[in-house]
């Protein structure tokens, strides 16, 4: 049993307070997810009962075609237990049955297609080239110490409070491919999700692609504000 005991001792564990905080956040997401799933199910029943299955399927297929941008990989639209998935060479947008929308970002190309795919999933999204949103780095050009790569960043004004940002967007990884999880239900009325496409300048010392994934930011309106807010 020695290897097993040693492995048990190696197991990383969070402090109890942190564990409980994470558990409560997970619980909120779980409860919201089950409610959203049940609400969707209820709203779909009349359409199904009315014999509209074929029409719904046709509409979904049309939406998939509309949202497929340049570089789309044909035949990769999955609809199994999920509502739908749009796959292109650059990114994947998946809408789960609970309403959560996940973006898997592989390359920062086809912003218009990504914006269209997100809007089709009910996310009021704005996707365009622009500096990365970073209250920490503020406005200007920043060289990340870890890589030496240089990026334009902006402390966008008129963004939603941090608690809202956390509720709407979670993300994993700064290197591509990155994953952004969007909870459209948590977006305040009238707000928009801004996803700036940011391509940095690669440091000659670094093999990194020079691309870093800055997460989307929730704006209080659907107009992209100018840079100018103070550093936080």
């Amino acid at each position, binding site marked *: *049993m*020695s*290897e*097993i*005991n*040693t*492995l*048990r*001792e*190696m*197991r*990383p*564990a*969070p402090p109890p307070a*942190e*564990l*409980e905080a*994470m*558990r409560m*956040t*997970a*619980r909120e*997401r*779980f*409860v919201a*997810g*089950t409610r959203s*799933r*049940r609400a969707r199910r209820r709203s779909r029943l009349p359409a199904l009962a009315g014999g509209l299955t074929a029409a719904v399927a046709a509409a979904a297929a049309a939406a998939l075609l509309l949202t497929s941008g340049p570089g789309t990989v044909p035949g990769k639209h999955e609809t199994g*237990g999920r509502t739908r998935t749009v796959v292109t060479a650059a990114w994947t947008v998946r809408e789960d*049955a*609970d309403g959560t929308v996940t973006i898997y970002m592989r390359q920062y190309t086809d912003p218009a297609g990504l914006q269209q795919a997100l809007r089709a999933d009910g996310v009021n999204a704005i996707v365009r080239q622009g500096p990365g949103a970073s209250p920490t780095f503020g406005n200007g050009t920043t060289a990340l110490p870890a890589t030496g790569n240089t990026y334009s960043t902006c402390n966008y004004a008129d963004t939603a409070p941090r608690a809202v940002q956390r509720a709407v967007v*979670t993300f*994993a*990884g700064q290197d591509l491919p990155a994953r952004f*999880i969007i909870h459209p239900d948590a977006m305040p009325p009238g707000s928009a999700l801004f996803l700036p496409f940011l391509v940095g300048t690669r440091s000659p010392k670094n093999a990194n692609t020079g691309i870093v994934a800055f997460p989307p930011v929730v704006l209080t309106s659907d107009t992209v504000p100018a840079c100018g807010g103070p550093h936080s």
Partner: protein
Amino acid sequence: MTIDTQASDADLIARSLAEPDLFTAVFDRHSAEILRYVYARLGAELAEDVTAETFLAAFGCRGRYDGSWPDARPWLYGIAVRQIRRHRRVEARRLRLLRSALADGPAEDHSDRVVERVTAARLGPRLAAVLAALPRQDRELLLLFAWAELSYAEAAAALGTTAGAVKARLHRIRVRMRRELGGSNPMNEENGDE
């Protein structure tokens, strides 16, 4: 909605088909344990997220739950393992970090388990490297056994296989680990598994 605190998970899951809110009781019973496991595998960055996804997936397929298992833990771990599989890069990075952290040496510790901790610190970097090099299925099984502390039968239920197959695979994994650790484990004991 009334929740019988003595009700088995199987009862709660069956009743949740008619009263979906009852499934929250299953979350409350097991989420801390599943979260700890996910945290150990993927870190804080994804722990909340993957735990919520695990229980949402469980909620979505609760109609197929095998009611002959009163305890839902093996089923939940099986779902968690599949969710964790979607984050292979994060796990690989996590294992590299674990290896580095263990290589930094043991923290001062005056608990009763200090000997095991020192052993873990001594073997940890190599063990973490062995863990990272294991085939995915082997690593999943080993960690269900070591970190989730499931029995053979429970690990088998989680992975959709038999207890006999689990026992045989674990034996093979442990032989490989001992070989790759160079047989230098000072805590080595010649006893069985359970």
